[in-house]
């Protein structure tokens, strides 16, 4: 037995030994998890703790229906018109209306408020002024077949051809606009409010698209 082996261990030595024994006895899965944690910490200054890149949003296409919250939404076309009397007219003289025509249905099993669709839709590069609070304007929705306002809720199992209408500032001369559809997330239980079984509007996009805009007199 050497002198070194005979030397009684100090407190630090005993702790090191206990820690080594603890680590050695851990199952392989725990060792790998700990290793990944260490790797993340080491790479933190270089972006290791940053979240993964977002999945690119879907591109809106005419033929492909999208689930926007509880609604099935199919883009049909974008147009700019001088008015949609009797349903809607521009709020300022010389202004126009920017309209997305779409097919909207509720494939679920309960009535769903139309605001869960309209709040998710915004347009850019379309001459649409932001709301008074600076946020992107959301549209009013009308039934194309009878020009009535579609507000309130849409019942399960019914489908409408709708006009989503934004006020357009005078002088817009573009021929394309960008449509953005925000993602929504269903919450069965919401511990922060009393509103269970609800759709939450998220910050990220479900879909974006640059769409051609038809100009109508």
């Amino acid at each position: 037995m050497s002198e070194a082996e005979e030397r009684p261990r100090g407190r630090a030595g005993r702790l090191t030994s206990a820690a080594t024994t603890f680590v050695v006895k851990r199952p392989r899965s725990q060792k790998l998890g700990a290793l990944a944690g260490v790797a993340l910490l080491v790479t933190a200054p270089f972006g290791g703790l940053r979240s993964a890149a977002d999945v690119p949003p879907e591109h809106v296409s005419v033929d492909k229906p999208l689930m926007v919250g509880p609604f099935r939404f199919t883009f049909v076309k974008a147009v700019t018109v001088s008015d949609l009397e009797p349903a809607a007219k521009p709020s300022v003289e010389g202004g126009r209306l920017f309209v997305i025509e779409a097919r909207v249905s509720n494939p679920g099993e309960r009535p769903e408020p139309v605001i869960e669709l309209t709040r998710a839709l915004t347009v850019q590069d379309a001459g649409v002024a932001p709301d008074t609070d600076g946020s992107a304007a959301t549209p009013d929705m009308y039934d194309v077949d009878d020009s009535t306002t579609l507000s309130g809720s849409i019942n399960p199992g019914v489908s409408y051809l709708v006009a989503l209408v934004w006020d357009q500032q005078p002088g817009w001369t573009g021929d394309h606009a960008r449509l953005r559809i925000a993602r929504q997330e269903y919450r069965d239980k919401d511990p922060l409010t009393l509103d269970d079984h609800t759709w939450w509007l998220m910050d990220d996009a479900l879909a974006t698209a640059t769409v051609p805009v038809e100009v109508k007199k």
Partner: protein
Amino acid sequence: MGVGRLISDHIPLDHVDAASFVHRGDVGERVRLRFADVTVTDVRAARALTTHTTAAAPAGVFLVLAVTAVGRGSDQNYVGLDLVDPAGIHYVPTVRGGCATAIKGRAGVPSYALICYDVPRQALEGAHLQFSLAPYDNDGAFQRRDDVADIDLGIHAAEAARMWRTNDSYKASMTELTPPDLTPSPAPKAVSR
């Protein structure tokens, strides 16, 4: 102590019953509730609902209910007006067309309203009206421990088929002091889908 122990051991104190008090009825039958007496007096289907300025077309068909409510105790709005199909799927009144989406109740005085639903074919046969003070919302939480009238609208298979094919149009009506005009007229061509 002994009595207390007996109660706590044998009565399920952790069970809270939040169910509504359901009162069943049929068309033409007055259903008595804590806050009102309610009667569905007529059930129709419509291809259009008209006011003096608008004509609304359904995505499915409009189911039109003539409802009379006599308030008890105080004036209140009756907001729970869900149509429920045999599968338990709920449908709410449409805001399009000019019908009532809530009934303005007056104590001791009849309120007459047309309630109109834009519904798919499968909602017709076996449908019931669930009438209550508060809305059903998503889970009936607002109606817990309160009275709900569950009224069978008497729509059988043949009647549902006939309703689905209707080309009738009715004048929309909200809450009034007189019964609604239920004289049908042909639906205007402009609103046919």
